């Protein structure tokens, strides 16, 4: 039986298809999901999500969020998600640099800002590493 995977961000539905397997980055390490998995709820960490469909692998970079697995239906709710092919390395590097610069003045920022900037940095790193591997 095939799995259905749905990846949704606040801006759009990024991915929705039936797939064979998927590897999801969580805060407790990567988890691989095959059909027949038990019901699970986990926290998604920034990182690369690898989808296998018909023997082909697709890599997406995802931001933090949550995943719910319920009877072969996988729902990923992520802050961001982007297909590796669409990642623009230079744009990511600029965003990374800007966030890192802003983080240097950590003392002047409030904790929520620091948190969101760190999220940006982690997502940027995730995108870059996914891009490198995807090539």
């Amino acid at each position, binding site marked *: 039986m095939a799995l259905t995977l*749905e990846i*949704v*961000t*606040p*801006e*759009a*539905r990024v991915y929705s298809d039936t797939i064979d397997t998927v590897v999801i980055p*969580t*805060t*407790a390490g990567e*988890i691989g999901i095959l059909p027949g998995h*038990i*019901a*699970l*709820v*986990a*926290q998604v960490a920034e990182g690369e999500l690898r989808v296998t469909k018909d023997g082909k692998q697709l890599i997406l970079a995802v931001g933090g969020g*949550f995943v*719910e697995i*319920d*009877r072969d239906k996988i*729902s990923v*709710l992520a802050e961001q998600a982007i297909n590796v092919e669409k990642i623009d390395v230079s744009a990511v590097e600029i965003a990374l640099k800007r966030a890192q610069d802003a983080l240097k003045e950590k003392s002047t920022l409030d904790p*929520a800002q620091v948190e*969101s900037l760190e999220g940006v940095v982690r997502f940027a790193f995730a995108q870059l590493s996914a891009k490198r591997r995807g090539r």
Partner: protein
Amino acid sequence: MASTRDIRRRIKSVKNTRQITKAMELVAASKMKKAQQAALAGQPYAHLLTNMLAALAPHVSDQLHPFLARRTVKTRGILLITSDKGLCGPLNANLFKLATEIKTPAKFYSIGRKGTQFLARSKRDLVADFPVQDRAPFSEVKVAVEFIAKQYLDGVIDTVEVIFPRFKNTLVQEPVLRPLLPLDNLREYLENSQRHGGVFQPDEANRNQPFEFEPDAKTVLSALLPFYVNREIYQFVLLARASEHSARMVAMKTAKDNATSLVGELTLQYNKARQAAITQEIVEIAAASFSAA
């Protein structure tokens, strides 16, 4: 009958008004498009998140997180989401009607200047109001939500409920009172709203297999629940913004159409008055020449 000059003056002023309302309609239309897009794009995410919680809720004990536990309600907490500006038809008045119906002790929180003014005027217990820009950045909404969540956790309020205009389409915005916290009645609420044309898809089979949590239930819930509340209220704000601009565009379009028909009527009146004056003059001249002859 009014003099032709008076009528001409009125035509001019009505035309001016029409010009203004037309401009406002166009502005509202373009803002509406953006606001609607933002609200609709967020919709699948919000629905999925809600469904996820609804599936989860029956399987976790309400001791795991304060957001889940029901307590005796002494003071309700109401967040009122309105527009900052007026001229948007009955949108805000409909929300106020809902707010007025609340008779039990409640504390109020407000997003939107109109709501703040209303609560102050009606002498409600307004605890705080939060300015949120028109394009509603998440960071500004988050400030409000965190404040309210803290009040809830501190026991100042025992529920969190939100009054906002739910966006249905450009012509229809429906004022709703949505109970948000505690979350224990989430499923109940969703099933209710499902009956009223909501979007909730209940599980096909009643599942009794419990959920596993990674790393553990407490960690996941303490991240997921506040996140859910944040997201949900943010979505409400987006919907309220879409409603606001839609209502304003419709109101302005009506005003423009009214002005157009008024100009038509006045022009008719003006022509009648003009013709009456000319006829009068001819009669006078004829009478004068007749008596002179």
